[in-house]
């Protein structure tokens, strides 16, 4: 429901396969194991359903856990409210001075242990799925975070996109709007093919930054001295806004970027056109791409902020 990326998705394929499953197994699944069923029946709780394969797994865990938390929370709240309302002082009668009830105490120790172990089981399964990296990604992009912007290098392709704070280099022309700081800038665009696996190698050029794509349900630090590797398999073409989440200094609040997922053919066409336009400046591909693409120079953005 809140799954919508900021821009217009180029194509929104309906989930055909799952409706059959839902019709026959739905009621049973809800009763037995909501997590088995697939996310379409689970409420979103204001979260994103996950625009990537990996992010969808996280969503299922999130939603299932929220349900469990609501159940536990409701029980405890009812116990508290019952105690508070039922046992208000009505007289000076002395209540019974009991203190221990060992069977009860054992019960409320063991049940939480079981709940927690169950959550741990689901956690391990999900985190292995989310963190798994494919041996043969279709595209590999090196992402460098810096104060204050992002640089995306397409390994072996001599293509890179670079943008500072609030620039909107608009690499594919899907949204050609002008951009004003802190209002509607999308920042530099990280272009990737939909339906294929993209390998991200994340590094930082200076301080700690946070690479966070809300619609992908995923964040990872760009940590100086550490190289992080992870995969995205975006399900549908679209534009997904994104932002730095780890406080990184003065312009942290403006360190936007966005992911552009294109149908594979369109993605390859974009890659070729970028290669063509950046050939002359092969030694500094980033600089040329950036200068040819970006609307407002960084200096003016900083002055305005």
């Amino acid at each position: 429901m809140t799954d919508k990326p900021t821009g217009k998705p180029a194509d929104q394929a309906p989930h055909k396969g799952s409706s059959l499953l839902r019709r026959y197994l739905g009621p049973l699944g809800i009763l037995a194991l909501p997590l088995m069923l697939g996310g379409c029946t689970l409420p979103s709780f204001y979260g994103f359903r996950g625009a990537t394969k990996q992010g969808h797994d996280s969503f299922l865990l999130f939603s299932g856990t929220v349900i469990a938390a609501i159940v536990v929370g409701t029980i405890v709240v009812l116990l508290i409210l019952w105690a508070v309302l039922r046992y208000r002082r009505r007289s000076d009668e002395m209540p019974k001075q009991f203190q221990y009830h060992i069977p009860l105490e054992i019960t409320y120790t063991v049940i939480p242990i079981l709940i927690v172990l169950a959550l741990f089981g689901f956690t391990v399964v999900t985190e292995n799925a989310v963190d798994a990296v494919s041996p043969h990604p279709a595209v590999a992009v090196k992402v460098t975070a810096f104060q204050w912007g992002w640089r995306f290098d397409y390994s072996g392709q001599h293509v890179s996109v670079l943008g500072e704070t609030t620039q909107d280099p608009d690499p594919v022309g899907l949204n050609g709007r002008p951009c004003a700081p802190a209002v509607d800038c999308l920042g530099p665009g990280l272009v990737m093919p939909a339906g294929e696996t993209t390998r991200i190698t994340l590094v930082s050029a200076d301080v700690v930054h946070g690479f966070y794509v809300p619609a992908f349900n995923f964040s990872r630090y760009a940590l100086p001295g550490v190289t992080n590797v992870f995969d995205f398999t975006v399900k549908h073409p679209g534009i997904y806004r994104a932002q730095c989440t780890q406080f990184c200094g003065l312009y942290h609040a403006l360190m936007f970027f966005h992911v552009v997922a294109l149908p594979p053919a369109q993605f390859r066409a974009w890659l070729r056109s970028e290669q063509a336009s950046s050939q002359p400046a092969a030694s500094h591909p980033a600089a040329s791409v950036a200068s040819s693409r970006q609307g407002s120079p960084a200096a003016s953005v900083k002055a305005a902020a």
Partner: protein
Amino acid sequence: MTLLAEHPAVLHGHPEHHEGPTGVLKWLTSTDHKVIGLSYMITSLVIFFIAGGMAILLRVQLASPHSSLLSLQQYNELFTMHGSLMLYLFAGPFAFGGLANYIIPLQVGAPDMAFPRLNALSYWLYLTGSITMLMGFFTAGGAAAFAWVAYAPLSSAIHSPGAGADLWIVSLLLTGFSAVFTGVNLVTTIFYLRAPGMTMFRLPIFTWNMLVTAILILIAFPVLTAAMVFLFADRHFGTHIFSVKGGGVPVLYQHLFWFFGHPEVYILALPYFGMVTDIIPVFSRKPLFGYKGMVFATMSIAALSTGVWAHHMFTTGVVLLPFFSLMSLLIAVPTGIKFFNWIGTMWRGQIRFDTPMLFCVGFLLAFLMGGLTGVMLASPPIDFLTHDTYFVVAHFHQVLFGTAVFAGFAGFYFWFPKMFGRKLNEPLGKIHFWLMFIGFWVTYLPMYVLGLKGMPRRVATYPSGLGWHLLNQVASLGSYLIAISFLFFLWNIWTSWRHPVAAGANPWDAHTLEWFTSSPPPHHNYLKLPPVRSERPTWDYFHPDARTISHNGRRNGHVKVGAEVGSTGGSDQ
């Protein structure tokens, strides 16, 4: 090494013969734990109001998108100082320097802390450290602006030049020593200065929790102090402990910081758990349900809390996720035990809702939701989608506000009559509670949604058109309500100052030893002590017919012949 005479004698030799200095000189030179405790409490409350004022500024800024009330730099300084003041200089010192300092010697039946002069040194280090941190605002570059965690390399000399950052580091060094000294003092006092008959399993839970807290302080704070020394050396002495360039390891800072930082969370929480655990039984007129389970739960929380630090680093990609996840999830178990003990205490009680009890119920509800969302964050995939967003801001405020403010003010309203011999006004206290309670939920519930919609924390401004505006506006409105509620608190203090109503020694019909002596207590606390035969000596003294029943009471059938709990050591000691 018990210092007091045996029961039931009047204690000899220490009537009011101390003709010490009065007025300002008394506050400057005193080594009396009660005076130092009050100094701590007043100072930390002033800090709380300063930090709260900053929070309101932050909320005004965030009430609308791309707002220009504060510049980016100003916002960054203010949120850094808000968090730092609240955690380092309010929540901790209010509990272990303020209330614990005042209450612990009374609860164990001691005349003072074990090392009164060290205690005074703690306070003066704390005061100096607090002023040091605030001085940052008056330097040319402004106050520190690297968040309360000061991650390297953002906190390096290159990325955060200026004296504000140095003052922040030095402040943590000073208050770090202050905390360690207080920790030593509390441990020694609780182990060696207990009154006759006050065995470990007759200690009030507040005292138990302060003992465990003090041990955690001794484990955690030296690590923070070391990290600050390293940071300072990197900034000024050319070392490269946390910088990649010289072969250092930036992520080491995060490990050191959170090895302190997570136990710190419990250093801030356990004292407040202790307060509500002492208060709820009093207003329910019952003993604490599952006393021993509560003690073991506290100990296991403390033990687990030293092995979970990397749950703050799940998204670094360099920590062992399953281990830290499991350890963190397990903390939910002893925490759950505490909840059921609190509920079990109220169960079949005769609950009176005076202001302290209202604040305790407020704490229960706030901490319940904060705790449940904490369990969610302990699962790495869920942390990946909420880390550093407003979801986390909502989570830790529910926990910290729940403990330090709801439970803290429960403690304040509860012990105020003991400390000043005056009552606080009940209607004003209740208005304070209800306004704050409503404001609290209105402020923090929208923040969960904001986080799930992708709003990062620590942003000075945000774009319009993402559905964040209304939620932020509501959160800001809630925070104004919280601010207003504190006007009633101040009004209450003012009233009790101008129109004192005598409280008497034991206005709440309370349980623990401190309510046996006069309010405020005499110089060395006790002129006589009641026999201590359970964790409720004052109650036992005034209600000899309503002793605790050991199990669920079936055996004894009726109240009057109930066996005492843990009655070792002879009939009357």
